């Protein structure tokens, strides 16, 4: 077998985050010699999913500053025998993003045939946390009506509000045509909430419903972006089945897509090395000379990696909690024939939570609840992912959100929190770009729904690697490999 040093590689891809992995998938039928390495001993980079054991070593690494994007990570376990299962029974996702049915990621996974190895689950209801004005009463979760059928049948809002909501939903579906554009263009850069108030006379509560559907982290999304996101949501509804607009890959979200893409790369002949990074790189030479941390020195025409850290300080706080209850009421399917959802979204609007010092929350807190169907925890437990913009007091507010949520869903007993992981993730303004033989991917965004702009830089990197050999129509469009087709499918 050839040694690493004897090969002139066409490209060395460093890191197995989603973008690098999708690039490996895109190159998997290209005859290019691909060496795909990752300094981590796991796949997925900032989109990885971890067993509890792996969480521990990751937290240690974050604490030593070796995970540039992340900081302030800590784990808290309930003492004693709490019903927490063995560490490998869990798979906690660093990037539990939901994927809208209209996302180009899904169509690319289908056209590249990689989707056959991923199990997709439905994302169910979106709800709002409504604090009770009377502290002796339970707070409530109110489901957001997000289709016309929902709006008709809901009892949560008045008839007048229903008319306003209906009018808005109709408007959004065709918001890019005339005369709708005349209505929103003057407000394009103003906050969506303002537009909803001025043009649709929506009260605060209805505004909150709409903002929640945008999943805007700070709640201040502008009208242009907001309308685009709402339209994506509405037009995704029903695309792959009744009653849901978004999907989630089983076993840890985007991590699974990264692994499947890397496997496709390997099947296409790429060489994979985990636990191996770049020690030194000389890109003044052509080909580029790289010394790997494994001690090998290799030569390659191109290099694709994560951009040099250009982090700024804004970002998000996360709290991941494992609770000892299946939280069944959150996973009802409301529409006949709909698959049982495995994920439910809950928003805690700005102002609905407060710190012990009485400071009200300035930004929304979002919660993604995952049932054991996601494969992220054993049966009869659930995983809760809380996210909010990093601000002073964010960590405390996330803990408040956790307590408030558990109290709001409590039946006879309040579900117990068995395990907590907390961390901060920085957001970066760096852009993906090529310079000479090197392509750098911007760090992933911290948005809650998959952002298709991520895919553009994968496409750019692919063009850079293939150079004049790239054929646009062939991008991520492959036939099934021999044997992958079910023979029943052929004969039926």
């Amino acid at each position, binding site marked *: *077998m050839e040694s690493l040093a004897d090969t002139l590689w066409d490209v060395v891809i460093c890191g197995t985050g989603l973008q690098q992995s999708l690039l490996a998938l895109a190159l998997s039928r290209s005859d290019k010699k691909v060496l795909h390495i990752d300094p981590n001993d796991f*796949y997925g980079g900032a989109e990885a999913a971890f067993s509890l054991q792996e969480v521990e070593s990751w937290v240690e690494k974050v604490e030593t500053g070796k995970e540039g994007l992340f900081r302030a990570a800590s784990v808290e376990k309930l003492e004693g025998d709490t019903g927490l299962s063995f560490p*490998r029974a869990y798979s906690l996702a660093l990037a539990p993003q939901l994927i809208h049915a209209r996302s180009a990621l*899904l169509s690319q*996974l*289908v056209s590249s045939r990689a*989707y056959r*190895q991923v*199990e*997709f*689950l*439905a994302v169910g209801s979106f709800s709002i946390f409504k604090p009770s004005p009377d502290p002796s009463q339970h707070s409530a979760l109110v489901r957001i009506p997000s289709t016309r059928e929902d709006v008709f049948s809901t009892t949560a809002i008045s008839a007048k509000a229903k008319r306003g909501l209906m009018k808005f939903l109709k408007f959004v579906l065709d918001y890019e045509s005339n005369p709708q554009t005349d209505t929103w263009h003057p407000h394009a850069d103003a906050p969506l909430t303002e537009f909803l108030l001025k043009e649709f006379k929506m009260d605060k509560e209805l505004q909150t419903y709409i903002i929640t559907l945008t999943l805007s982290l700070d709640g201040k999304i502008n009208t242009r972006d907001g309308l685009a996101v709402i339209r994506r949501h509405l037009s995704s509804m029903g695309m*792959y*089945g009744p009653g*849901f607009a978004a*999907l989630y890959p*089983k*076993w840890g979200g985007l991590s*699974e897509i990264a*692994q*499947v893409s*890397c*496997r*496709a790369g*390997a*099947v*296409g*002949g790429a*060489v*994979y*090395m*985990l*636990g*191996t990074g770049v020690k030194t790189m000389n890109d003044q030479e052509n080909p580029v000379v790289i010394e790997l941390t494994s001690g090998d020195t290799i030569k390659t025409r191109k290099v694709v990696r994560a951009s040099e850290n250009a982090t700024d300080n804004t970002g998000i706080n996360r709290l991941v909690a494992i609770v000892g209850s299946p939280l069944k009421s959150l996973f009802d399917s409301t529409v006949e024939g709909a*698959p*049982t959802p*495995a994920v439910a979204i809950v928003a805690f609007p700005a102002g609905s939570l407060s710190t012990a010092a009485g400071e009200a929350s300035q930004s929304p807190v979002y919660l993604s609840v995952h049932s*054991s*169907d996601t494969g992220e925890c054993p*049966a009869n437990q659930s995983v809760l992912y809380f996210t909010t913009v990093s601000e002073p007091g964010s960590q405390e507010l996330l803990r408040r959100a956790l307590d408030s949520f558990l109290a709001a869903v409590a039946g006879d007993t309040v579900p117990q929190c068995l395990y907590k992981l907390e961390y901060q993730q920085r957001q970066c303004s760096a852009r993906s770009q090529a310079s000479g033989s090197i392509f750098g991917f911007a760090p992933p965004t911290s948005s809650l729904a998959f952002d298709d702009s991520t895919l553009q830089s994968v496409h750019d990197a692919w063009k850079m690697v293939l150079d004049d050999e790239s054929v646009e129509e062939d991008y991520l469009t492959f036939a099934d*490999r*021999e*044997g*992958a087709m*079910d*023979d*029943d*499918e052929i*004969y*039926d």
Partner: protein
Amino acid sequence: MADSGAPKPSSSVKLVLLGEAAVGKSSLVLRFVNNDFQENKEPTIGAAFLTQKCNLPTRTIKFEIWDTAGQERFASLAPMYYRNAQAALVVYDLTKPTSLIKAKHWVAELQRQASPGIVIALVGNKLDLTNDAAGGDGEGAGGDGEGDARKVTTEEAKSYAEEEGLLFFETSAKTGYNVTEVFTAIANAIPETSLKTARGPGASSAAARTEEQRVNLNGPRDPNAKEGCAC
């Protein structure tokens, strides 16, 4: 050969291949699936997975066989590779003792990582390089005779397999000796309860309950929706 006209129940089983590079993992599968053997085969690329049916008297098992795609070379197999597998074929080269050590590592890894109840078969390949009558009729006692390349005795591997509760075979992908037997033995050892047609508690870790939740991205042509249809 249908005996009564009623179709036998049919189930899919994910089977993963594991073992050191160059022990003949892909060759075993190619022998089983295509009844073919290629001398001096290139290291594996190109196979995502292969499928092959195994007909048992009371049911049909359809193996979905996952090849490592060479990712074992630098210890870079992803968890998704062996997670949820209901069967594993751990292969060593019986002319190469280090490959048995590697095989034992894989067995330990599967016992930690994979679904409880996974059926593991330990297979010593390249029996044709020994003096045993490969293609003949016996598991000859491992010898050290002239021209015999065997370095791992049958007894050593077999007693290890017994201790760990593994199925055990010595095979030759080249002659085809014992290859079908391995897969038939695995098919027979798969417990009825871990098959996809099974429902209910206990089966959840073995991909049995997923059908109701799974969203199909490929329109109504869902291969999983047709389980149990008449053919």
